[in-house]
């Protein structure tokens, strides 16, 4: 009987990271994610790894850049304002093709905002939050188990493509406790040795450079095209989403993360009352599951996009299925703005007639 633990989402991220072989953590305190550095500060020494509480989120992302350039599995975590501070460092990691995990346990904003859940960092996370036009691998857990599983997956994808990965969760998923079944990390067999990593030229006779500066004629253009090819390959191979009751659905509700949990309950309530409605839950926000939306709206279904913001992912849904009617229901983030299942069920009734 596998061991079931009752843990916080934040702690599940830390557990998943350590299990995946992460031995370098650099972070900074910020609500609602501080359980992650606290857990790792406790557990890392026994694993022989390094934990640094840096002087700022800026310092911590740059420590991650340094550690990753040396081939280590390394991570940082923060929450929205801290992630804003890390953007330049993340852009350098993207430009330098450094893998690494950045965890964002979102809080409400803008500015100091609040410490409640929010999905208003979607654009920042998926559209290349810093300068230069890059993408991160963005995974959106919607359960404590997924906080554990997707953290492991994030390290594998990040190493496979040498693209930084982000876990995009929020205060609800991070702070709630739920059952977790930990399981041993199994490395995928296609992960290449990191011969690009820095260790001093001695071993290989030629010195290596991890950099993002390209001043030669056409050099940076080629570099950007190389990065773009990686993103296209991920779009083709690495999309993940979950479908619930979609087969005969006439209305496709779509939501991710904590909002998807609420929407899932609302869809179940609607099904019990004969509404043909289902839930499409993206797990990878980048690469975005465009084909899934095409597939599940091929028979003329309508879409209702639900977010804890004033409309961000809905843009990507509309881009994916331009000829489909995509409705939106959002609650602006802040204390007390978490929608109830009944509230979402009412939205479902607006856009879906009773059948059966």
């Amino acid at each position, binding site marked *: 009987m596998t061991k079931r633990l009752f843990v916080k989402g934040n702690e599940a991220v830390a557990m998943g990271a350590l299990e995946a072989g992460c031995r370098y953590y650099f972070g900074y305190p910020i609500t609602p994610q501080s359980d992650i550095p606290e857990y790792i500060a406790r557990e890392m020494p026994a694993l022989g790894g390094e934990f*640094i509480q*840096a002087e700022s989120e800026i*310092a911590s992302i740059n420590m991650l850049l*340094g550690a990753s*350039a040396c081939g280590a599995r390394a991570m940082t975590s923060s929450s929205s304002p801290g992630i804003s501070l890390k953007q330049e460092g993340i852009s350098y990691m993207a430009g330098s093709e450094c893998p690494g995990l950045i965890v964002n346990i979102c809080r409400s904003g803008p500015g100091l905002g609040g410490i409640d859940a929010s999905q208003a960092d979607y654009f920042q996370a998926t559209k290349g939050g810093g300068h230069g036009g890059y993408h991160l691998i963005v995974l959106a857990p919607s359960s404590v188990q997924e906080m554990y599983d997707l953290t492991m997956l994030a390290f594998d994808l990040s190493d496979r493509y040498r693209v930084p990965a982000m876990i995009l969760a929020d205060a609800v998923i991070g702070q709630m406790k739920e059952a977790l079944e930990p399981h041993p990390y199994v490395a995928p067999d296609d992960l290449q040795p990191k011969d690009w990593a820095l*260790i001093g*030229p001695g071993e290989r006779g030629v*010195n290596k450079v991890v950099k993002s500066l390209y001043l030669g004629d056409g050099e940076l253009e080629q570099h950007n095209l190389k990065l773009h090819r990686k993103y296209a390959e991920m779009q083709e191979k690495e999309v993940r989403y979950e479908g619930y009751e979609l087969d005969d659905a006439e209305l496709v509700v779509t939501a991710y993360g904590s909002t998807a949990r609420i929407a899932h309950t609302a869809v179940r309530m609607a099904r019990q009352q004969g509404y043909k409605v289902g839930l499409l839950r993206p797990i990878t926000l980048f690469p975005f599951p465009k084909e899934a939306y095409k597939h599940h709206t091929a028979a003329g279904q309508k879409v209702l996009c639900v977010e804890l913001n004033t409309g961000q992912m809905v843009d990507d849904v509309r881009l994916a299925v331009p000829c489909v009617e995509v409705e939106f229901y959002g609650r602006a983030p802040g204390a007390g703005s978490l929608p109830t299942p009944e509230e979402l069920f009412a939205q479902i009734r607006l856009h879906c007639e009773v059948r059966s």
Partner: protein
Amino acid sequence: MSIENVEAMKQVFSRPASLNAVQTHFCPGCQHGVIHRLVAQAMDAFDIQAQTIGVASVGCSVFLYGYFGIDVIEAPHGRAPAVATGAKRVHPQRPVFTYQGDGDLAAIGTSEIIHCANRGEPITVIFVNNTTYGMTGGQMAPTTLPSQKTSTSPYGRNTSKDGYPIRMTELLAGLEGTAYAARVAVDTPQHVLQAGKAIKKAFQTQLRDNGFGFVEVLSTCPTNWGMNPVDANARVAEEMIPYFPLGVFKDAAAQGE
């Protein structure tokens, strides 16, 4: 004088092995070139070129990877000490150094350098102070001297509004985590020799004592000072050294700490 009989003589000065035999992009008279040589000389002295990881900052010295035969990471502006921290934690047995200018280290990067020193990270920091932002065209830096004219202090640095030049070596020497902190110059042959010793000592602090070593090197920027190299060089002694006194401000090993 044919080359053959040069062979019969003893060479007493040559390019350090760690310094690539290429022409640098630095302006004529820019003393980054001397400082690069001294860093390479220190790496040769400890025979560490094959293991060393350098962290380049953003400024005239960003092309570090073209001039040293070592592995190099490029850090964002001001963040080299943090990048070096990450690298050193992953490779504690590898020599790690940063090479930064005054805009990089003493303005945007003050937080990183202070906390890196305060943690006593066993790395070596080479800090080039030429009282200006060179690469971007001569703007006022944290080390710009009072009433010094720059492209962003065209009427001269007004200390009541622009603040005073920051003495980083003394600042860092005051931190427990700092093991070695010295300020040197390269404006005379004697100063160059002293600077070489200090840079070597800063590397030794890392390699032997596992301590944080810091060397500030006063340097010229003829192009942005609007002076020819010889006059610029004279300015180091006439104006910079009086404000930025040379010396060893902390040597934990020597003080038996």
